[in-house]
């Protein structure tokens, strides 16, 4: 019994810690974005952009974030071209999400270029994070 209790404590501590890291990372990034000129961040605006479709200039196909990440962020997604499975994006089911600044920056850069054909503004990135952290 004692060891099981110990395990529960360790797991709970770990989860709390992961939550802390997440909050810390999102805060840090959003402060950066504000320093770069962004205003108030809105989860609703983030969600709206998440769903919005964009026409690819070359192929004429329509893409949104959901093309790969699917409509349910708690479920795994799939790379549109290669079929590679993408781990769920919602921090509520995937504790590793929103914990690594370098990783977030890299994928904002890649995915914004893929879907929007350009880099995202600090305001847009802040809105996306605001939406995603509540998932």
């Amino acid at each position, binding site marked *: 019994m004692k060891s099981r209790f110990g395990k529960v404590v360790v797991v709970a501590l770990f989860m709390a810690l992961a939550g802390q890291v997440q909050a810390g990372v999102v805060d840090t990034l959003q402060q950066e974005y504000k320093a770069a000129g962004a205003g108030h961040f809105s989860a609703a605006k983030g969600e709206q952009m998440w769903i919005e479709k964009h026409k690819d200039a*070359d192929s004429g196909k329509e893409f949104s974030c959901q093309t790969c990440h699917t409509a349910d962020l708690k479920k795994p997604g799939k*790379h549109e*071209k*290669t*079929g*590679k499975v993408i781990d769920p994006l919602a921090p509520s089911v995937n504790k590793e999400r929103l914990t690594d600044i370098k990783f977030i920056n*890299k994928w904002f*850069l*890649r995915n914004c*270029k*893929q879907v929007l054909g350009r880099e995202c503004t600090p305001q847009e990135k802040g809105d996306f994070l605001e939406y995603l952290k509540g998932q």
Partner: protein
Amino acid sequence: MEKDQKGGQSVLVWDLPTRVFHWLLVTAFVMAWLSYEDNRYLDVHTFAGYTFFGLLIFRLIWGVFGTHYARFREFSYGPGAVFGYIKGLFGEDMRRYIGHNPAGAWAIFALIGMGLLLTISGLFVLGGEERHGPLAGIVSFRQSVPFRETHEFVAWMLLALVFIHFCGVIVESLFHRENLVGAMFRGTKLADTASPSVRPHRLIGATIVTVVAAYVIASFAGYLTAPAEQPYQPFKGPELAMNDPWTEACSECHLDFHPSLLPMRSWEKLLAQQEDHFGDDLVLDEATVSDLLAYARKNSADLEQSEPAWRMNSNIAASDTPLRITEVSYWKRKHEEIDAQVWKRNEIKSKANCGACHLDAKQGTFEDADMRIPGETAFDEIEWLKALFGTTPK
């Protein structure tokens, strides 16, 4: 040398080891022919080859130390005897030999000699092309080519010889009105008292069967015992260098294709144009790019460190710089028989998804026998099995 007329007594001519040898050799020969064409059954083919070789070695020993009719000196006939025997078939003098007749004896020696040539050339192919077996790495990929040609040629010659041997058995059976095939099962023939009956040597016969059975289990039990999520791999390829930054960078979006699958110039070009990687910007920093390049240069296909590397590289013209593995003619040829419907399956979806069928795709070794199409069994894949048994229920 026995040249008796048919008598009334049952005599044991073929001891148990000789009979077991004969029928196991037939089985291994058939098995090798059925498994040679499709690379996936290379493990079956090598099993048949090793068994064939082992049986021939036993026969050589038995030809010296075995029982009366099995000894080579009992059926060492000169060309005159062979000619006389064949002439006799068309004339009055239909001599009956209790052991091997002169023509049959020559066929036996030729079968054993060509069988050895076949299996030994096979060992060179296995060592050179596949880097397996006792000769692994001793012969280079290029040196193995003439061995492969020899192996194929001798296999056809041996098949022809088996056919001649079989015709000889039929002709002799008809002429002397006796069932020689049955005699190779029972071991006995009718003869007069002058022909000695040999000891059956049951223990040695049983030992051969046991050894082959143990070899069957050692070779194929893995298919039954391996868990579904970790299918059995009969061959483990040579270990190729892996690299963490490479794995990490590539596997973010797709399989981390091993650098041994494309030449150096392809990787250089791919990384030089990383801002337009098949339409996507990889946004890799300079340090990462130079790390990846360093690893790719040391392990690219031009260095021919593995069979797939050699095959891919020797099928790319020096003037070509393919950016996709699937553009290379060797890749296309190897995959042309796969139905368009198969590619669309959920477990596969993309031609870039090598790991869907190749169990060792990540390691870059692409062993012949380490592939299977998800959801299909041998019964769906092999034409003659399908014809015999239909498809297995899913």
